[in-house]
């Protein structure tokens, strides 16, 4: 009984909202706001009407969905490696942030889409330009969070490992990075949501396939239900990627005390 009640409490408002949308959209008949069932039907036709031996997935999924997903994850991975590496180096040095801090926080304030024209002439339309845009956006939160986390290592721990003459790379690997891990994960999650946004942006401008490209193609043809289906898909992707990373984080950092805060900093 309590389970039913809890489920009802959690999902009732959402269900009611969708139902109201359905009723109002049907009554109003506004082509810009199709009812949810039309969006669902369009999503099913777009992605799940393929042959049975391919798990019913259509070519659309392989050509556009998975391509976009590879771009997001690839760009995010490059940004993560570069951000954590550089962030650890900068965070360990007591004065380096004094020198590069202002430059970093200025460069970070440049909206990544504003640099798309530059990336376009350097890399042309294609993977290079998309990756450059994604990496440029996802890199900063990972870098700055890593610097922050590495700086907050307990000095006693650091001094203790030094007096044991622990080799430098072991100190970094087994003392600095684990204690900076919660901050680094926060940066990774922020970076992942930026990567998703910039994947869409870069594909709206410079791509011949992908989710963003299909989204704007549907808009140009005034094909509203598929356009809504792609919007919902991007939301679902954002939710799923964040949930997956959160699960990894909880598994990796379960040993950390007092790690329940969800406030953004």
């Amino acid at each position, binding site marked *: 009984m309590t389970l039913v009640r809890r489920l009802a409490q959690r999902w009732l408002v*959402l269900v009611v909202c969708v139902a109201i949308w359905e009723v109002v959209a049907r009554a109003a008949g506004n082509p810009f706001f199709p009812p949810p069932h039309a969006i669902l039907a369009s999503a099913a036709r777009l992605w799940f009407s393929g042959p049975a031996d391919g798990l019913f997935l259509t070519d659309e999924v392989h050509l556009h969905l998975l391509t976009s997903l590879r771009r997001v994850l690839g760009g995010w991975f490059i940004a993560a490696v570069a951000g954590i590496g550089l962030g650890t180096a900068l965070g360990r040095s007591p004065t380096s942030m004094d020198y590069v801090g202002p430059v970093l926080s200025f460069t970070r304030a440049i909206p990544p889409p504003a640099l798309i*024209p530059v990336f376009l002439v350097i890399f042309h339309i294609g993977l290079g330009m998309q990756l450059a845009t994604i990496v440029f956006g996802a890199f900063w939160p990972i870098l700055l969070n890593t610097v922050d986390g590495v700086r907050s290592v307990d000095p006693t721990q650091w001094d203790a490992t030094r007096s044991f003459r622990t080799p430098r790379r072991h100190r970094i690997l087994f003392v600095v990075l684990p204690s900076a891990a919660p901050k680094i994960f926060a940066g990774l999650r922020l970076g992942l949501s930026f990567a*998703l946004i910039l994947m869409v942006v870069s594909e709206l401008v410079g791509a011949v396939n992908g989710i963003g490209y299909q989204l704007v193609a549907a808009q140009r043809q005034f094909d509203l239900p598929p356009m809504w289906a792609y919007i919902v898909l991007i939301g679902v992707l954002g939710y799923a990627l964040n949930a997956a990373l959160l699960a990894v984080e909880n598994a990796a950092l379960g040993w950390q005390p007092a790690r329940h805060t969800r*406030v953004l900093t």
Partner: protein
Amino acid sequence: MPHRRRPLRGLAGASAALLLWEGAVRAGLVDDRFLPPPSAVLGALLTLIGAESFLRDVLATVLAWAIALGIAVAIAVPAGVLLGSIPWLKVATRAVVELLRPIPSVALIPLVILVIGGGPEAKITLAVYASVWPILFNAVYALGEIDPLLLDTSRACGAGRVRTLATVALPYAAPFVFTGIRLSAAIALIVVVSTEFLAGATLGIGTVILTASSGAGRMDLVLAGALTAGVIGYLVNESLAALGRRWLGWSPLGRAVV
């Protein structure tokens, strides 16, 4: 002592970065048609600033940003306090919030263009949508994480629900809400400039970048526009951080997060 040296070091770092960029282009490592040297970009920036139309573009962007942030704060702070202080409301709306939040505002650009058009309303709508979430999120979760001891103490002293909210819960949450506003300010500027660039608005920094990149492909003007957006973003962030330190410096949490 280190504090006094810090601005000088920052200046040294910035000059070194500019020299490195200039040197790399001059030495031919990068094609200067693709990435013009900073001297050329600064020249372009000076020409732009001299032109009245550019100032109007900057004003359009800053105005859209300020309106969007104001609307987002007016929506998200009361909504966050309401959702954060009434438990059943928080649970009930959670699924809706968690499903709407990950939809990036850029995914809504095609829809907004169709429904609202490409005018200033479009960028303001998108920026409001994007910047509501960090504020709302921080308000709800900060109110949910107050030390129960503080709430019990307040109740034991005879304070009612409203008084506890006003004198204990809101001061506790204020630094977090302020951090949310600072994050949202950065996001709103990015969304405004991106929408101008992607949707082809009539005025704005994003429009300057779009015009400069199409046709002749004037990368010096593109970079000058991007740098202007960067300067605005940097100034907004720094002044909000200074404001936060001044207003919320009394709170140990405020000092930590702002």
